[in-house]
């Protein structure tokens, strides 16, 4: 007879095993070939050959420096936007309005935004069309923010997409920090509120947001779908370059791609370590700026504070206009530069894509539902185990998938799947999604579980209800809100996965996201627009429904 706690333990360890297996597999599948050990390709002698090959690739250093530039630039912009917005608007009368506008921008998938961004900001884009008659300059002299050589457009677009994420992540810590009290104390000592924000709140804020910032860095370093649309491609950012090596119809490139994936991982660790060290230096070592007694803002402080509303404008306007562009293009037939509006309209493209969209929706939804519910089940098991045994899930399981470059991890998994040639692509894709969905579901669910008062269960069992029944009848309904939030987050994550679907599905599994990226290689703006809109639609519905739901709960 197996006891209940043994069952729970068994479930806990199987959950950990299933979720950590891709990590282990990914690591082994990358490490071994990187050092030339891949029996399938008749490589049995560990060596540094693939590294030598990698370091002789002419694109390597330019590609890496481009990636570092994009990552640092976009992270710096994200931090600047987020912090100045908080400083200027936190607890002001606009704050609730601002947080309300954050979720839709956060939910707008990267690919959809990238497509809209090109329609808006390329040299024949809408903004240039608006300015063209005024300044009458030719496109050759226009600014270039799409596929530009230095990746400036890509950095800006990333920052716009990540700022809402960072702001949403800031809400809970700022509530804990009791900002008003800090401000009162600071101003009573003669400091301007802005100086209080710089000198006291910023260090605390940063220390709370280390994980989200690390996730942003990990994402910027390794994103492929977004880069394919916006980044320069000669050379391409390092993750895209690795992806191209993986796809090359020459298996001898696989060990080189493996070495490159490891290099990207090392790069991620160096950047994360470097930023952490910079934070340490600024906040702990060279921290005279914190108590040099300066109580007034300098010139730069004033300037930044003046243009903060502009940051908000950019952050809100570009995504909004991007979606508007998608809608316009999807119904246009002829729309030539420099016209502001289409010359002729058509429903033809929607008609032609309708059937295809239908089946893509079905696939996307089934993968999202399956991976989310399995992740939810695992998360509940882990949280229950934590509550019973006071032993939490090792943080590493949550952090690795969020921070480690996706391309390397998945590449390793793909190498191992070569040894199991008859795996079903659909299940493999669901499994791959779980790896990335699980951390988000777990992190969204954890607060609700922690806040639950165990005495409800004790009362129920003391009244004679069997523990399992009490759990279903008492605990689960009380935690419904948390569960729904976690489901929404999980599905949102799954719906926008590109590489896991493509790599693990061997191309056979097509979702809205993979199709949207495939379609962009055709450059037909009408069709790109349709897929961009459709990709944005599902997460938007999810956000709307959660909003609706939370309002209903609120009214009660």
């Amino acid at each position, binding site marked *: 007879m197996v006891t209940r706690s043994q069952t729970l333990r068994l479930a806990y360890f199987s959950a950990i095993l299933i979720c950590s297996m891709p990590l282990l597999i990914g690591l082994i599948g990358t490490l071994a070939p990187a050092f030339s050990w891949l029996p*399938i*390709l008749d490589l049995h002698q560990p060596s540094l050959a693939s590294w030598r090959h990698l370091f002789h690739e*002419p*694109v390597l250093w*330019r*590609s890496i420096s481009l990636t570092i530039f994009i990552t640092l630039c976009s992270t710096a912009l994200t931090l600047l936007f987020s912090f100045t917005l908080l400083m200027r608007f936190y607890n002001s009368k606009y704050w609730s309005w601002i947080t309300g506008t954050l979720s839709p921008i956060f939910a707008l998938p990267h690919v959809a935004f990238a497509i809209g961004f090109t329609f808006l900001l390329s*040299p*024949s884009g809408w903004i240039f069309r608006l300015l063209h008659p005024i300044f009458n300059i030719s*496109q*050759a002299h226009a600014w*270039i923010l799409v*596929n*530009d*050589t230095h990746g400036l457009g890509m950095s800006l677009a990333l920052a716009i997409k990540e700022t809402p994420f960072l702001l949403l992540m800031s809400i809970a810590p700022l509530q804990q920090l009791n900002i008003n009290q800090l401000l009162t104390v600071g101003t009573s000592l003669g400091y301007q509120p802005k100086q209080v924000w710089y000198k006291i709140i910023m260090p605390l804020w940063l220390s709370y947001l280390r994980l989200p910032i690390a996730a942003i860095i990990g994402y910027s370093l390794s994103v492929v779908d977004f880069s394919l649309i916006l980044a*320069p*491609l*000669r*050379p391409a950012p390092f993750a895209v370059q690795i992806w191209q090596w*993986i*796809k*090359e*119809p*020459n*298996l001898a490139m696989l060990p080189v791609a493996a070495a490159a994936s490891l290099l990207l991982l090392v790069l991620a660790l160096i950047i994360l370590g470097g930023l952490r060290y910079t934070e340490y230096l600024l906040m702990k070592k060279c921290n005279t700026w914190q108590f040099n007694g300066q109580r007034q803002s300098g010139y730069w402080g004033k300037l930044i504070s003046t243009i903060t509303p502009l940051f908000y404008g950019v952050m809100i306007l570009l995504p909004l206009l991007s979606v508007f562009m998608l809608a316009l293009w999807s119904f*246009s*037939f*002829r729309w*030539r*530069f420099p016209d502001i509006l289409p010359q*002729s309209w*058509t*429903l*033809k493209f929607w*008609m*032609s894509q*309708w*059937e*295809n969209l239908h089946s893509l929706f079905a696939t996307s939804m089934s993968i999202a539902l399956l991976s989310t519910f399995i992740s939810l089940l695992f998360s509940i098991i882990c949280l229950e185990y934590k509550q019973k045994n006071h032993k939490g899930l090792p943080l590493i399981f949550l952090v690795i998938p969020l921070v480690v470059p996706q391309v390397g991890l998945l590449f390793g998994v793909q190498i191992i799947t*070569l*040894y199991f*040639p*008859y795996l079903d*692509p659909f299940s493999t894709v669901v499994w791959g999604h779980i790896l990335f969905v699980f951390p988000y579901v777990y992190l969204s669910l954890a607060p609700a579980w922690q806040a639950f008062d165990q005495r409800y269960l004790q009362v129920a069992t003391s009244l004679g209800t069997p523990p399992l029944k009490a759990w279903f009848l008492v605990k689960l309904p009380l935690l419904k809100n948390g569960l729904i939030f976690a489901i929404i987050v999980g599905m949102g994550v799954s719906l926008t996965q590109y590489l896991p679907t493509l790599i693990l599905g*061997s*191309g*056979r599994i*097509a979702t809205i996201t993979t*199709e949207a*990226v*495939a*379609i962009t*290689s*055709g*450059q*037909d*703006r*009408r*069709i790109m627009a349709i897929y961009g809109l459709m990709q944005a639609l599902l997460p938007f519905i999810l956000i709307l429904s959660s909003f609706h739901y939370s309002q209903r709960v609120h009214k009660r």
Partner: protein
Amino acid sequence: MDTIYSQNFSHMATKIIKGNNMYKFVIHLMLIGFSVFSMPSFAQQPPHWDEIQEQAKGQTVYFYAWGGSPEVNQYLSKIARTIYQQSQVTLKQVKVADISEAIQQLLAEKTAGKHEKGNVDLIWINGKNFKTLKDNNMLYGPLSTQLPNWALLDKNLPIELDFAKPTQGYEAPWGIGQLVFIYDHQHLPHPPLSFAELLTYAQQHPNKISYPQPPEFHGSSFLKAALIELSHDNPALYKPVKPADYATITAPLWHYLDQLHKVAWRKGQQFPQSSAQTIQLLDDGELDLAIAFNPNAAKTAINNGSLPETARTYAFKAGALSNLHFLAIPANSSAKQGALVVINTLLSPEAQRDKANTQIWGDPSVLLPQTLTQTSQPVLDQGFQRFPSLSELDPSWQIALEKSWKTRYGH
């Protein structure tokens, strides 16, 4: 259920956009779709064809094909419906950004010992990719003895050769590609007619000329066509590359490109990523010439709303680099019979005529001309525009040129 759905859908479609010729035509097509196969066939059926059709029923064929052309994708999704109605074979196009992805996958499957139930059932290839698959014995065949519609192929076309490599019936020709340029004759009445003139034009009009970044197919073809002109059609190009004289033969090409890039679009720092992007850039007025591999590309793009009515396709005076593109079945395909049925349908006069129609795709037919006119359907605008052709080089040249381009300009 699928059929009912699509028919209702098309009714709805006609109601909404009455007067749209394209849609009328497509619905017409769908309605006659049923009758197509009942027509007398032109050739004797090869042995076992009935058996193959029987085995194919219920199979799903995953067709790995370049997904970058909306016209091609749409053509395939329409024909998938016909195929399902006629033969109960489900055709699913896997839209790859570059067909080399599918080759990589097949190589990986072969290496891993996956000799059956592979993911790729049918593949759209030619040139170096065919060479890779054929040299590694990764193709199923020969197809020539199994397909009834093989008899309808136009034997005047070089259907047995793919980039100078004998196909031995291991791939079925599907259409004809010609490297052509597109221009807007209102904007540019006298387009350049040779690579030399192209360079002069680019120097007079900086930022207006470019080509897709090799190893993209069109970009590599641009290099080959340029090499033919700049090397004065050196006979060595049609034999495997000899390392000894590679540098001498290609030197004029690199010299040419060095000069072209200085005055090219975005100063040669970025290149378009595809033929489709050059067409978009032509419409935007950023480029003065687009590059395509379809002699009817301009007409198709006009019909699709992607280019103005004044767009024209043309070839340089030396001729257009020409080749055939093919369909092949990987040896580990999980649905070989289904794939055979699909190929046979794609080689039917109806399917080939629709493919040639510039309202749909505009890719020239590979069938005997008389087969296309013998059916009862009204003859539509087929736009059979073809240019004098330049032969393809030996496939080893493309591989070598792509490699050199990457070393010289890829970073």
